[in-house]
């Protein structure tokens, strides 16, 4: 019974990780820029959700109507202002530019919102459904289901729609895609926007579970990269599976091994993946470009 509860906790935690990572895998997998400010996109989403609640009185599930499109625009803005000039630059430039962006965003939040921890106290979200000995938190369950639904919807989008196919084409072979008449800049911009909107969804959904403060992104971003690499860049199903796996590892090692070491366990897993199967569980489109095949 205890094992089952630990497992379920792990799956639900995995849902959180997966939801946060879906946007990153799309962006990293298509635009191929390592964005160290990804955690701050999450932070902005969470603040947006918080302020919709505290100023407008909107329930975080409702305020998604505002937050998701808002973050889409934020993503486009970041892409065009910071990312676009360095898209073809050597990776060290991308790393430093996005690190700089991360520092600016964290401290702007500190300047404007102060370092206080803000959270949303939702009675609804705290409800726990009991099935025998097992307790299932409603808000976590919503996150878990959303992760699956979003992954599926985005996969449909990528697979069936025209725009989705264009995005996949660019990811597989940028030059060939251009020869087919696809405008890379437009695609990258839209991908960044969609990816950020997905992070916006994640931010809004996890606000009832967590709290926001300027550095909150840093707590999640490394885990997000682990999930993304584990699942395979650009792969929705991979990010979902990767997130669930990491969540379960987190929960199991925290319970059976030692709570102080659980982060270490999944970093070790991360290193293992990088060394033995860098294209991830589900493989990665355009892996040759990255020198991974």
């Amino acid at each position, binding site marked *: 019974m205890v094992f089952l509860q630990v497992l379920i906790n792990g799956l639900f935690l995995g849902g959180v990780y997966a939801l946060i990572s879906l946007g990153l895998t799309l962006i990293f997998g298509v635009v191929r820029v390592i964005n160290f400010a990804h955690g701050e996109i999450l932070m902005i989403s969470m603040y947006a959700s918080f302020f919709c609640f505290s100023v407008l009185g909107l329930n975080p599930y409702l305020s998604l109507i505002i937050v998701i499109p808002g973050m889409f625009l934020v993503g486009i803005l970041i892409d065009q202002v910071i990312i676009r000039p360095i898209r073809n630059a050597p990776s060290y430039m991308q790393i430093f530019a996005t690190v700089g962006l991360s520092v600016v965003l964290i401290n702007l939040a500190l300047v404007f919102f102060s370092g206080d921890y803000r959270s949303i*106290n939702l009675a609804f979200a705290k409800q726990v459904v009991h099935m025998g000995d097992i307790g299932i938190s409603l808000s976590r369950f919503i996150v878990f289901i959303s992760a699956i639904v979003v992954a599926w919807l985005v996969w449909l989008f990528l697979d069936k729609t025209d725009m989705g196919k264009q995005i996949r084409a660019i990811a597989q072979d940028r030059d060939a895609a251009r020869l087919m008449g696809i405008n890379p800049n437009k695609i990258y911009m839209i991908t960044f926007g969609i990816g950020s909107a997905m992070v916006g969804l994640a931010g809004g959904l996890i606000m009832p579970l967590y709290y926001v403060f300027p550095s909150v992104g840093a707590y*999640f971003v490394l885990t997000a990269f682990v999930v993304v690499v584990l699942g395979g860049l650009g792969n929705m199903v991979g990010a979902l599976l990767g997130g669930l796996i990491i969540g379960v590892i987190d929960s199991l090692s925290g319970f059976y091994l030692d709570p102080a070491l659980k982060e270490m366990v999944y970093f070790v897993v991360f290193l293992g993946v990088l060394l033995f199967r860098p294209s991830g569980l589900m493989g990665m489109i355009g892996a040759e470009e990255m020198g991974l095949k």
Partner: protein
Amino acid sequence: MRILKSALLMTALAALLIAPLGSAMAADEIKLGTIFSRTGPLANLGLDSWRGAELARIVQNQKGGLLGKKIVFINGDAPNPKAAVSETERLCTVEKVPVILGSFSSSISLAASAKANQHKVIYWEMGAVGDKITERGLKYVFRTSPTGSDLGRDQLRFALGELAIKIGKKPAQMKVASIYEDSAYGTACAAGIRDQAKKMGVKLAVDEAYNHKATDLSSLVMRVKAANPDVILESSYENDAIMFFRQAQEAGLKIRQYVGSGGGMNQPGYKKALGNAINGYVCNVGYPGYNLNPAYAKGIKELEALYTKTFGEKPTSVFSVINYMGAMALWDVINRAGSLKPEALVKAALATNIPGDKTILRYGIKFAGPGSKNMGQNVLASYFISQWQGGQLQIVSPAGAATPGHSLQVK
């Protein structure tokens, strides 16, 4: 673009030249340095601690300042120990301050106080709990506030004492779990708990650390639940305290009482996030704040009013009070020393003997002398126990300090 590049270069050159100039001291001013972490993850508590010192400065200046001069603060920001060392260097060698007040964060304090001591500048610690701060035999380092291990010892003493009585169990029957975040603060408290447990001959049912940056504590909750404790002794910052409580609720972990050690569990943010669930359920060992009975803590209401007037908002945490008290003690030392020379200050500090009923927090100030293991530590510093009741932190122990009508409750 050229202009941009030149501008960058000019800025850099300017930095080299302008920085050491420092600020000139007017003849009728006393410059004192402060080091707090005003940026970084603990920024809000670092800032609030500084505010306590700032209030003391304002109050003293209203009384005419020190040695006939107005007090001016030169403020240093130290988000990490290396920055603390640099800032201390600047304060000591450029600004040439005789005293530095600080710091809330133990790691900042450890690094900065060592440097200040080298420069024979007094380091006046008013809130950081790391035991080692006053265990290094540094002549110029003093701390007015209690230590981390004392926090832990008091947590366990309270749990097996008054709390056990209220619950109705004998100490030997109590199952106690200790969980703590893994940075300097939590580790010190947990060490105190362990130390006290050994002294009292009891065994802890759980003794677990966790990474304070963790995004999930459900596995820790499960481990604690498996041990089925009566009481959880917790040393957490605000975010992890909130997370643990919530995840414990979700997992259906039921205990008689949480006993925190200050840190995050006495913050308004903690209350706002968790709501009524904490009432009668969470105690805190720590230094109290504006919730002290005004009859017991003279001047606390006036101080709160001053805070609100000066900073434009109600106090955000309890830390300003203890820093205020520590700074007021410093003014007393400086007045008695009659000068800002290091040896005079040390001598005056060692002679300090302020009785408990003269301080706002009702414990006295007397520093351990040379030769003792914790030289420079205020040996009269002690803690209070408060409990969240009706959305407020009410003192429940010692009894004399409690607001009438508020006594310890258990679930």
